[in-house]
């Protein structure tokens, strides 16, 4: 066998192996999605949206409590995480730049991004739940908000840095003060990217369970009281899926399906927006 033939052979083997690995990974993904869709769609019905949790065996049971709770928790987390993340990202890109402080913040943020979310839940348990003396939607939202910050901070930082320096200079050259340059030109130029970051940030926390277990905890009934424990889709999935009751398990499948579609949708939307923004330039 010549050297060239050998290289061609090695190349073929490497290509086959990597293609195979990709197919296996995709196979698992579609397996999971397939089971989820089959079981989830089968479990869907209008009752899910009309009724709150009920004892097993009650036909008038649904997921209204968890859906609304999830929406409240995610909205509150977004209200906390998005402004902080965007402002911090703005500081890094527009003010801190390559300073030591900026680099330190970037490093810490990266560590936070990969920190186990249960640690953040424990942290919020210590600083919010313990002093309050009970679980609350506030605590859950704060935990999710904190998890959201590094995702949004990072994308904002990256996206703002993609805005060409000449554009900033052109605004300064017209006599714009710095905050106007940032608001009018830099944010506008990075609009699509920041929006994508926000969507990905929401998607990131949408599937969190661990940090909610000891912050907002759970509730089988409908509530909008932010000072009390609040149900969420994720913790509800956990409870229902691990229960021995057939109807609860069905609700668990439905919740898992709805949540997955929500997160998948956000991810796809985020990418579409980013792609459309790039194409326009």
């Amino acid at each position, binding site marked *: 066998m010549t050297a060239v033939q050998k290289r061609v052979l090695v190349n073929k083997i490497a290509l086959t192996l990597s293609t195979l690995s990709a197919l296996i990974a995709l196979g698992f993904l579609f397996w999971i999605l397939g089971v989820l869709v089959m079981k989830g769609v089968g479990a869907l019905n209008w009752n899910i949206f009309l009724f709150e949790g009920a004892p097993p065996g009650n036909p008038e049971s649904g997921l209204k409590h968890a859906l609304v709770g999830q929406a409240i928790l995610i909205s509150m987390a977004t209200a906390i995480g998005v402004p902080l993340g965007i402002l911090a990202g703005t500081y890094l890109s527009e003010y801190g730049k390559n300073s030591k402080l900026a680099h330190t913040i970037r490093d810490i943020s990266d560590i936070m991004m990969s920190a186990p979310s249960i640690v953040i839940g424990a942290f919020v348990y210590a600083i919010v739940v313990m002093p309050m003396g009970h679980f609350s939607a506030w605590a859950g939202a704060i935990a999710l908000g904190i998890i959201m910050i590094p995702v949004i901070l990072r994308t904002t930082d990256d996206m703002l840095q993609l805005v060409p320096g000449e554009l*900033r200079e052109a605004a300064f*050259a*017209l006599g*714009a003060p710095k905050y106007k340059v940032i608001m009018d030109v830099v944010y506008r130029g990075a609009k699509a990217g920041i929006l994508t970051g926000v969507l990905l940030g929401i998607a990131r926390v949408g599937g969190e369970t661990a940090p909610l277990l000891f912050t907002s905890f759970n509730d089988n009934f409908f509530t909008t009281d932010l000072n009390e424990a609040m149900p969420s889709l994720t913790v509800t999935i956990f409870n229902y899926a691990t229960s021995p009751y057939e109807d609860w398990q069905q609700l668990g499948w439905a919740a898992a399906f709805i949540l997955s579609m929500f997160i998948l949708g956000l991810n796809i939307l985020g990418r579409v927006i980013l792609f459309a923004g790039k194409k326009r330039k």
Partner: protein
Amino acid sequence: MASIIDIKEECALHVRNFEFTYKGAAAASLKKVTMPIAKHSITALIGPSGCGKTTLLRSFNRMHDLYPGNSYAGEIEFEGRNILGAKEDLIHLRTKIGMIFQKPTAFPMSIFDNVAYGMRLQGIKNKTELNDRVEKALKDAAIWKEVSDRLKHDANGLSGGQQQRLCIARAIAVEPEVLLFDEPTSALDPISTQGIEKLVIELKERVSIIIVTHNMQQAARVSDYTGFMYLGELIELGQTEELFVTPKEKLTQEYITGKFG
């Protein structure tokens, strides 16, 4: 050793013994530059790449102040004061001395909003006034006909040459005294270049213009005065025709005849 023409007409700007050093640089990028800029005329800056043309140009609107750590000395006189002073109001200065960049810098907003941007910064909110002045600026920048029916469209949809004229419209809309051009046609095709050159010549009725160009023909075509720079020094400033036909300095002679570049 430098040969600087004594300008008899009124001057828009007067640079005296100006020195500039970038942050952390070992040597000064501009050395003892003294240069008068005639009012309502076009002054071109030529010279090999890296000789300091852009650095000098960006000193007139204190663009360098956006990046901390640079140091400068000397004087640039504008409207009777030294604009290098620490108390200079840079926002006001930049409304008086506008700048057009090498690459078109249309903002990510509509054509109308681009042109209105500087005026809105100055607090002009009146719709009729904005409409009138945007239209006038676009007409003066010779782009009105092309965009009058799509003022609300995104400015990034325009061609490079159109965007550059839009940037000129945006700059003249605030009625500056001086316009600085840094190689405004280097990213454009020959036809767009011609359009911009024609426009620059028309504008000198109202503003004083300084234009940096790496293209000697362009300097010869558009400018009244030309300054030749080399290694951070202004070697020669003269009337354009004289400088190109009978340069006083040997270095100028060598540069314009293509002995180096």
